[in-house]
């Protein structure tokens, strides 16, 4: 899909730039206000370029990607990586530990409770702890990408924007021009178009995990290697798009009894289990409350 860019100055107080493109197996959309068309277009192109670069970096299915180089070699030798990749691997390991192992980029190949790779901060190197390890950083890249977009826009002085990563992760800069927040409705899973829950974003982010809209279960429990078959939605709200993304995945994979313990490591984040009933009913339970 080519870059889709739209500009509207129908409301002269808040001219809108809108960009949408395909990357990382989904659709990324960014809406921002307050800049002229040329500036909006330049920003749109920059965001797309950056996303394509991230997609390449973290794509384990692309044999020429930096991540594939690690997957190919790190079991046999120490692999030197650049700053960005090293930071990403550090963060992933931190998230693994703070989520009691329920967020793990080595999910498919991990041994429960064990670290899959070792990092050397002085040399900026990574080495797998055993044969057969393979890192899939898709879950990390999504939140990381949103953080990057937010940073790019923020550096350019944008104060009002909404970023949507495939509908499951949404991040905001500032608030809606006509309200104190961006009001994002989480769709009911069996009653399409109906709202199951409303989230108010104010310079913050949200992420939803659960069964795909086509009905598939796709999140794997790193402890068992089995696909998690939960029918609830797991919603996380908080400051960082990266953390909300990581947490919603980890909490969905974790048994209910352990979710509050995971949340206790994350201050300022709120997680909600949303149970959508046939016919439109909704039950919600805030984790740790």
């Amino acid at each position, binding site marked *: 899909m080519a870059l889709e860019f*739209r500009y*509207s100055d*129908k*409301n002269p*107080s*808040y001219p*809108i730039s*809108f960009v*949408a493109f395909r990357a990382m197996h*989904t*659709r990324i*959309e960014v*809406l921002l*206000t307050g800049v002229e068309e040329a500036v909006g277009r330049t920003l749109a192109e920059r965001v797309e370029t950056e996303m394509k670069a991230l997609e390449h970096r973290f794509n384990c299915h692309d044999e020429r990607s930096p991540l594939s180089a690690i997957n190919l070699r790190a079991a046999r030798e120490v692999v030197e990586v650049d700053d960005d990749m090293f930071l990403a691997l550090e963060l992933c390991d931190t998230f693994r530990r703070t989520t009691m192992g329920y967020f793990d980029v080595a999910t498919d190949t991990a041994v429960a409770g064990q670290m899959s790779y070792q990092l050397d901060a002085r040399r900026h190197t990574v080495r797998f702890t055993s044969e057969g390890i393979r890192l899939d950083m898709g879950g990390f890249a999504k939140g990381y990408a949103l953080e990057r977009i937010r940073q790019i826009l923020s550096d350019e002085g944008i104060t009002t924007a*909404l970023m*949507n990563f*495939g*509908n*499951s992760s*949404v991040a905001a800069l500032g608030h*809606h*021009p*006509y*309200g104190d927040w*961006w*009001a*994002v*409705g*989480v*769709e009911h*899973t069996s009653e*399409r*178009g*109906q*709202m199951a829950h*409303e*989230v108010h974003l104010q310079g913050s982010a*949200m992420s*939803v*995990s*659960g*069964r*795909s*809209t*086509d009905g598939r279960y796709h999140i794997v429990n790193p402890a068992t290697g089995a696909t998690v078959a939960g029918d609830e*939605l797991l919603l996380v709200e908080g400051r960082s798009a990266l953390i909300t993304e990581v947490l919603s995945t980890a909490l969905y994979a974790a048994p209910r009894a352990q979710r509050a313990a995971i949340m206790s490591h994350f201050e300022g984040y709120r997680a909600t289990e949303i149970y959508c009933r046939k016919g439109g009913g909704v039950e919600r339970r805030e984790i740790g409350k």
Partner: protein
Amino acid sequence: MNRKEFLSDFGRMGFAGVALSLFPWLESCTEKAQQEVSGERARIGIIGTGSRGLFHIQHLVQMPNVEVVALCDNYRPHLEDAAQYYPEAKQYDDYRRLLDDKSVQGVIITTPLYLHARMTIDALRAGKRVFCEKSMAYTLDEALEVYNCRKELGAVLFIGQQRLFDPKYIKAMQLIHEGLIGDVVGVRNYWYRNNNWRREVPSPELERHINWRLYSEYSRGLMTELACHQLQNGSWAMGMLPEQVMGSGHLVYWTKEDERDVYDTVSAIFTYPNGVNMTFESIISNKHFGMGEQILGTKGTIDLVTAMHYTDEAAPKGSGMDQLIAQIESGIMSNSVFAGTSWAAETATLAPGMPIMPNVKVVSGESSVGAEADGSKELLEAFIHAVITGKQPEKVLEESYYATQFALLADKAMHENAILRLDDKYKVPYEPLRMK
């Protein structure tokens, strides 16, 4: 909503010019028109100072260019209520004496329906500029007589059809005329309440005087008191008049309490020349659905009461963000339902509604007196402007005239259990209010 907000809402949407060309009776709402009368005052007399009369007074007291100089009611407590607002105004118990009062330029008639035609004609012939509450008259003949009288005199006459001045209706009609919902294929109106529609009566001999709405000697009940407001929706949306009317009305419940003889349950179907039906239903012993007015089109629906647009077309990709764009373009904040577990491109959704304009105040229809933000104030302002200038706005009277005629015709159809057409003798020139 005051005038400034009213105009600013239209202005923000680049709408003011279009609205005026489509709905010329709004011309008095423009800044230019207001400047024309700045510094001048309309001297007003109010005939009938019961609940609706007092409702108008609440608006009049806010208008600097109005001086209420005379009040009239033959029920003393009501007259005293109004005099509290205007202690200097002369008080009358006979409307003819008020009409003799040369200091009165314009009159507002808020009396029981059976008096409307006589009082309006007398007032017009006395040289007054007249605002009369809806419905225009108690019979088809009287309505025609009023219409012809105004025409003969070239006088100013407004009827209390406030939806014609309600910004959300005006915006909705513009969108309908632009084709937003495709071809109009149905019009639904309903008005449900659960109350006995009675006013408290201090002593039994005043029952009919105060509760005139309940007796067919004075009122046509739900059709003239409620339906009349909604019946212009079909004509306004489609630019044509109904061809035939059928209906059914009954006293189902409230005779348990009193001896009223107007129906408490009515259903009517108005069929247009193109076969489209407009329905009206009212039940006053169940209120669950409240008041509703919906224009149904081949591509979507506009709910006039809530000023929401619902599309029948599957939501396109990224529709949540599209909604947000539309909101910001129109200066609106609302939620957008798009978040979920993952993007599924082709999932057809029942799209959530979109507000058609900002700051909409929804009127429940529960009050028998009136409601804020339903166009009543704008209508009154337009009348005051006309009292000062002596200019009758275009087209507005014909809309009111036909709303009354079809309310009366439906009531007749119910009583005669017949399918009726409006006799040619009642037809007056009607210019459709449709965008070309």
